[in-house]
């Protein structure tokens, strides 16, 4: 069975600082990996996805993520965070032929001035 672990339940970062949100997955086959963001009171917005090929993927809002098969990780990064980045971030895993996504428990990001 597939699973996703987001080790950081809550992260606090200063505005303008760099950000890295961790995601580890467990899946027997080649995974499809996704990052979503959920702002307070909102649905989920897709930030970026990885299917195959280049292991560094670019997304919206200046985010990027790197797939590392050897570490079973897909960490999300941003060079400089903005106050508007405060939200909950979810990592999810699926696969070719398996469209049912499994979500991690999420990381709540707080931005301080």
């Amino acid at each position, binding site marked *: 069975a597939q699973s996703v672990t987001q080790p950081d339940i809550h992260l606090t970062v200063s505005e303008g600082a760099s950000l890295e949100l961790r995601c580890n997955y467990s899946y027997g086959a080649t995974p*499809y990996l*996704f990052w*979503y963001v959920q702002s307070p*009171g*909102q*649905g*989920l*917005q*897709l930030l970026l*996805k990885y*299917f195959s090929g280049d292991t560094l993927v670019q997304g919206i809002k200046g985010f990027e993520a790197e797939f590392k098969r050897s570490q079973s990780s897909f960490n999300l990064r941003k060079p400089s965070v903005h106050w508007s980045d405060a939200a909950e971030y*979810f990592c999810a895993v*699926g696969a*070719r*032929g398996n*469209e*049912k*996504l499994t*979500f*991690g*428990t*999420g990381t709540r990001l707080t931005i301080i001035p």
Partner: protein
Amino acid sequence: SAVISQKPSRDICQRGTSLTIQCQVDSQVTMMFWYRQQPGQSLTLIATANQGSEATYESGFVIDKFPISRPNLTFSTLTVSNMSPEDSSIYLCSVLRASGTRYEQYFGPGTRLTVT
């Protein structure tokens, strides 16, 4: 992407009653899903809504409690039946957009349900 609307956006219901949540997509999609997000927790897939046939439920979810309809390729409903306070959650509908073997899931804004 996809534009997805859900009604109602929120509701407060008495225990023992039922609530039907509607999900409308701006264009035809092959797959639609319903998720539950309990307070402070992640998303759990309830079922896949199948057009013209019974929904496919995940372990722990049953049709009597969460009946789902999908009369066409752009619309689905989820009913939360005989509600209890434990059903207080955000319910989200999502749709799949596929291109070959690749796909993306897009989510509606959610329905925040409080059961008293």
